């Protein structure tokens, strides 16, 4: 199952948001990939691949989730990516 969405985390998927996102993916227990619509999809549980991909605020990404309950996992991860996690930081 896949979904296309726009990242809305203030400074993109770097640093803390990247860490939190990877942790959320790992906790889901599902195989999840993330990539740009025309680009290569990477393992979303890999913090290194995510940082290297350099996803920025406003970027369109495609999330795919395999396995049971994938709709619910997709919903949760979409929520994460469309929330600003840098807002509280000084």
């Amino acid at each position: 199952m896949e979904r296309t969405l726009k990242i809305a985390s203030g400074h993109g998927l770097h640093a803390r948001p990247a860490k939190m996102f990877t942790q959320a993916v790992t906790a889901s227990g599902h195989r999840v990939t993330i990539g740009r619509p025309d680009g290569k999809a990477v393992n979303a549980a890999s913090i290194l691949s995510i940082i290297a991909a350099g996803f920025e605020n406003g970027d369109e990404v495609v999330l795919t989730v395999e396995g049971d309950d994938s709709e619910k996992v997709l919903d949760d991860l979409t929520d994460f990516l469309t929330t600003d996690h840098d807002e509280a930081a000084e």
Partner: protein
Amino acid sequence: MIEVQELVGVGIGTGIVVGPVLHASRQAAAAPTDAASTIGAEAELDRARTALAAVSQQLRERAEAADEATRDVLEAQALMTEDPALLDGVEAGLASGVTAEKAVADAFAEFAALLADAGEYFAERAADLHDLSDRAVAVLQGRSTDLVVDPGHPYVLVARDLAPADTAVLDLDRVLAFVTSEGGPTSHTAILARQRGIVALVGAGGVESLPDGTQVIVDAERGRVFVDPDAAELADAEARIAAREAEASAPAGPGALADGTPVKLLANLGKPGEAKGAVEMGAEGVGLFRTEFLFLDSADAPTVEEQTESYREVLEAFPGKRVVVRLLDAGADKPLAFLSPGEEENPALGKRGLRALRASEQVLQDQLTALAAADAATDAELWVMAPMVATVEETRFVTRAIHEAGIPVAGVMVEIPSVALIADRVLAQTDFASIGTNDLTQYTMAADRQLGSVAALQDPWHPAVLRLVSEVGAAGAASGKPVGVCGEAAADPLLAVVLAGLGVTSLSMSPTALSDVRVSLARYSMDDARAIAHAALAASEAADAREAARAAADTTTAGKIPA
């Protein structure tokens, strides 16, 4: 062997020490070779997994004992060590028959190379990966993962770079100085050195070739390491160390240039509780009291009574002295629930600072009422200024509002180039100006302060920024009105001299920087400071401006520093 006499780097602070070199032993180990494995890929993969898990476990343990910011970094590093894509890379490398040491080092290096060229933020993550690779290889080679083996005496720690995981467990009492071959003024090493008052030189290429035990002088002020100094060089260093100690232990007088021209040294404060420490460190008052702390995390604005109490606490700590309070600076990096301008495409260019206050005038009136009440109850000299002022009309508006509240001294912050460029007309409408160099640099260079990828542009030494400062300084001198600087720039001992030379009459900074800046100002006369400022203004790039100022400063002080 090549005779190295002198190494150049970026000095942090102005300290100087003499001591023996000790290399970070983990980093100094030989790189893994591509010798063939004798136990087979399967067994090597097990070794690699075990080693990576051990490193990750150690990072998590250190994270638990660390402060919050360090914990975030260490947890992210633990995740990088456990990264599935990294392990895929290790497995692919092992297929060619190499050892686990080699495959792990290569897999980390591959990701580091991907990140190294993609801007400053990514380059820092690449440094993280070098460190993690060193750790994992050390485990595989059966060596200690500790950065140094305590030699039992004080030493100058030499490393490629220092990682939070290392410094979290390092005995800093033994460390005379840090010298790193990589890293810049914003690296973890530099930040730690500033916090702990440790002498440091970063980006000193070539330092790794010095053998352990080599005697060196680390001179942060001149940005140099002198290797195997002779008796005369040693005597010079000892004299300067003694002079610095005497200066530091002398009672902190008011800030002034060598010819007696006063340059007030003030503190930046973010909470009332910080006032006492600032007084102890010799602050002559407060140049920037940020009031956002009262408003953050609250759904509604605090009451007039709550605010009065907080302002009073600060004013009481500075009887008879100046305390400059900045009106609420909401928006951009400090969004407040009750003053939210709604969705903005570019919040740094949106309804922030004074613009937000004008849209919620009750918040402005309440804050002014509370400030006036606190002023009436204490003996400090209260000055109030507005953030994010862009026009003469705004200057007139806010100056009148502050005066009407019964506060006699009103001013504006110079953060937007527009007000710097017509500073004469702005100062004609208000009592003083205070330059916020962080935002002024951000708006002059069009480089988001919070974006690591453009961090290189965020340098207050840029001649374009200095020229704007000189406009404001000249307008201040012509009108006889005070011009201050509150921002990181004021804390840089050499840049502080440049600012004084440009006509700035007070400098406000973190209290820990006061002592170094005071000593630096006292070395130069007003004529020296003008010459140094002139050299910096004439440069084309930030780095050139810094170098030109340093060269001009060395010329003016030749023969003045005790030999």
